[in-house]
């Protein structure tokens, strides 16, 4: 799972009012190179919750993302590279996602988070 997906996901256990962002407990992280598409990065940037993205990147061992960002930075090649890398090239392979409200853990195995809910969580 890439951080792009992580940034869109929220815990939807019944009764949880703020299931975002899911905490990350990473035991294995992988990097797979993909071609950068600046247009997509510009398109998705306003939809991202940056603070959560930066924190998630941190839990996968990436520490070069700036704290403050604005859309002008998308013109900067170096920033684009870092952004692209953290968003689309780094994968959480093994570990867990953790609901910020209930602490419920969603295991991640072979890169696939298991978001199935128990009967009493629906």
């Amino acid at each position, binding site marked *: *799972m*890439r951080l*792009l*997906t992580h*940034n*869109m*996901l*929220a*815990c*939807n256990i019944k009764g949880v009012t703020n*299931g*975002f962002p899911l905490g990350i407990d990473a035991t294995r992280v992988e990097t797979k190179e*993909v071609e950068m*598409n600046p*247009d*997509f990065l510009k*398109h*998705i940037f306003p*939809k991202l*919750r940056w603070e959560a993205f930066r924190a998630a990147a941190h839990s996968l061992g990436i520490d070069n993302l700036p704290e403050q960002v604005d859309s002008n930075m998308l013109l900067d090649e170096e920033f684009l590279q870092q952004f692209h890398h953290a968003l*689309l090239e780094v994968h959480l392979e093994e570990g867990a996602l953790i609901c910020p409200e209930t602490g419920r853990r969603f295991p991640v195995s*072979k*890169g*696939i*988070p*298991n*978001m*199935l*809910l128990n*009967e009493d969580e*629906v």
Partner: protein
Amino acid sequence: MASRPELQNPPEIYYNETEARKYTTSSRIIEIQAKLTERALELLALPDDGLPRLILDIGCGSGLSGETLSEKGHIWIGLDISQAMLDVALERETEGDLILSDIGQGLGFRPGTLDGAISISALQWLCNADKSCNDPRQRLKTFFNSLYQSLSRGARAALQIYPQNAAQLEMISTAAMRCGFSGGLVVDYPHSTRAKKYFLCLICGPPNLNSALPKAKLGMESDESGSEVDSDNDEHTVTVLERQRPSKKRKVEKKVKGRAWVLKKKEQRRNHGFVNVPRDTKYTGRKRKAHF
């Protein structure tokens, strides 16, 4: 004839390793999935600007549908309830992110995040009460509500379904419309029992000028060549069930047009050569009391 898979087992059991294997070996299945996905993408009517979008693939299974999305340059996230199917997607090294989840429990996405959603042959599974805890109506409602939430405004969902009968089709479409979607059902090849395909085309938000439903494909589908005879006559569209949001909600938005607007319209009609346009007076476009 074998009975419908939906009647045999819950999806996570039916789509076991044996069934999932077919999605890598059967060229027929592969071709059908690709074709249906291409059509779904067409119905999504994304702006023709070459920009990659973030698309959700609902019931992504082995990732065949996702591969078509990747080919068109899009970035996708796939949801499926069957681990065996997702394992095949892993094997195939599809480019999208995969999530094991039951769409009847709702989609866990932040509001307004997705640019579009497709689904190929999965939704009819929601109509089954295959477990005591499964109430189809409730599950459909939960699913469509969360889908509506996750899509950005004006975004679309193109959902291809294999309904078991008319009642099921109605149940699915009604559930969708109740959640605030506009749009409706597009039936391709309506005159052929075999080639007939149902696409539920949903638009997030109230209808507007850009939200006209796409045309259905008519004529006969030729299986071998893959070429399709499109309707060349616009009047032949078979788009049924074109519903809009409940009128209750629309009434509120109805605005009274002012005097300036009336004057402008009358002027336009005169310029177009109409002779019976009433002359402008101090009464033109004034407020009138409601008469009942």
